[in-house]
């Protein structure tokens, strides 16, 4: 396969960026999207040029590092798929592919396609944890948890914090991310203790980072590689309201 890539290139956070066109020839359909970029980069390095900077780590859809907007859709638009799991067989020979970084005020560009997602870390630091004394590991069944709660909590905990929800949302809102973290902890007995303080502090941190609000368009759940759905945002809205009524 021969492809034309239109890639966003930006030297540094404050430098002006622009699209540069590259030719990706001899792409094998079984390659992942990131492997295809690796091949392009090897060509650039051989020519003595600066390779395209992009994030990746596990390359098996569990770490949340990869972060490309491909043809206007974060992670390329295949259900439950992160960029690293997207294969070149979904494209046709001769296609032109536009590759951009996540776009949000809270995610400033570091270089080319790499964005700074510390905003998410700061939201987690504001309350995305449970405060317990460390010690010997407790017995696995010491606290009984209903299966349904456990399942739902796990659905939320599947969030890998990649930020595709922010990238897809027309308001660059981080509600789905925060909702997933709030829900995953508040559904479990260990997390219930701090639920009110947690949701209040995490929402405050989210607003302070400059993310937008939710218009319930559903773009976030459509692109989420972990298929986290909008009902978690309703759950967060409920938790926040409850915290407000309790004065916490």
């Amino acid at each position: 396969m021969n492809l034309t890539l239109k890639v966003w290139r930006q030297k540094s956070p404050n430098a002006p960026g622009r699209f540069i066109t590259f030719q990706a020839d001899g792409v094998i359909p079984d390659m992942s999207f990131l492997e295809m970029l690796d091949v392009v980069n090897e060509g650039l390095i051989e020519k003595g040029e600066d390779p395209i900077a992009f994030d990746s780590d596990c390359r098996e859809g569990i770490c949340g590092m990869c972060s490309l907007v491909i043809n206007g859709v974060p992670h390329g638009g295949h259900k439950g798929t992160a960029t690293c799991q997207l294969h070149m067989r979904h494209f046709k020979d001769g296609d032109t592919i536009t590759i951009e970084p996540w776009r949000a005020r809270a995610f400033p560009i570091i270089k080319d396609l790499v964005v700074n997602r510390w905003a998410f870390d700061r939201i987690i630091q504001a309350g995305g944890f449970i405060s317990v004394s460390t010690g010997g590991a407790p017995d696995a069944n010491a606290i009984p948890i209903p299966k349904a709660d456990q399942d739902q909590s796990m659905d939320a905990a599947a969030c890998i914090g990649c930020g595709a929800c922010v990238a897809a949302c027309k308001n660059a809102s981080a509600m789905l991310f925060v909702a997933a973290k709030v829900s995953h902890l508040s559904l479990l007995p260990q997390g219930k203790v701090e639920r009110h303080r947690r949701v209040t502090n995490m929402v405050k941190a989210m607003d302070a980072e400059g993310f937008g609000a939710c218009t319930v368009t559903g773009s976030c759940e459509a692109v989420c590689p972990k298929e986290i759905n909008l009902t978690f945002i309703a759950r967060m809205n409920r938790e926040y309201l409850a915290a407000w009524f309790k004065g916490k």
Partner: protein
Amino acid sequence: MLRLFQSSLGKKYIMAVSGFVLFGFVIVHMLGNLQIFLGPEPLNRYAHFLQSMPELLWLARIVLLTMVALHVWSAIKLSLENKAARPAGYEGNPTPVAASYASRTMLMSGLIVAVFIIYHLLHFTVQTPAVNLTGQDFKTFLDPQTKHHDVFRMMVVGYSKFWVSGFYILGMALLCLHLSHGVTGMFQSLGLKNEHTGKWIDRFALAVAAVIFLGNCSIPMAVLLGYVR
């Protein structure tokens, strides 16, 4: 309390609660006005009943105006924050994935509905002769028997103008587009949606928007087609 006005979630609650009150008003307003199909006497009696309690009427008006103010304030505030959250867009401005037309155009449909409401108030509440395009003063329409305001005749004369009725139908189309998304968003923002209720709330929003559109548009249509005269 301050948190409610400052946080993004708080502003969504304000948007949802004010929207809920206004939505309730739209339903009651429609049911009241559908009495036009019962003839002049019941409609004029209903109108006089409302006008006969000025204190209560003004209380209702003040509550509604406050709700409109809160709804508009939260909409402007949230829209500005949302715009600021993405300073640079994507190449070729792609349509956001999976976002319905109604959900993407809430601000636009809302603004046009606001203009429509101002016209509607001037037309039938303030009864400014300049905006009704008939050359008649609605204030002079009196019921021959009771000497109360003849609302039935006002509506028939008012809707007999094609362009006026056309604007009403356009206003209703946009209001119902707004409600088809707004009603589900209202439940979502207040945290009343979950895995079980979610799809029913979505269906309810579409159904109620369709009912409001048909119900309200039936009045100018009936006048234009000569069914009510």
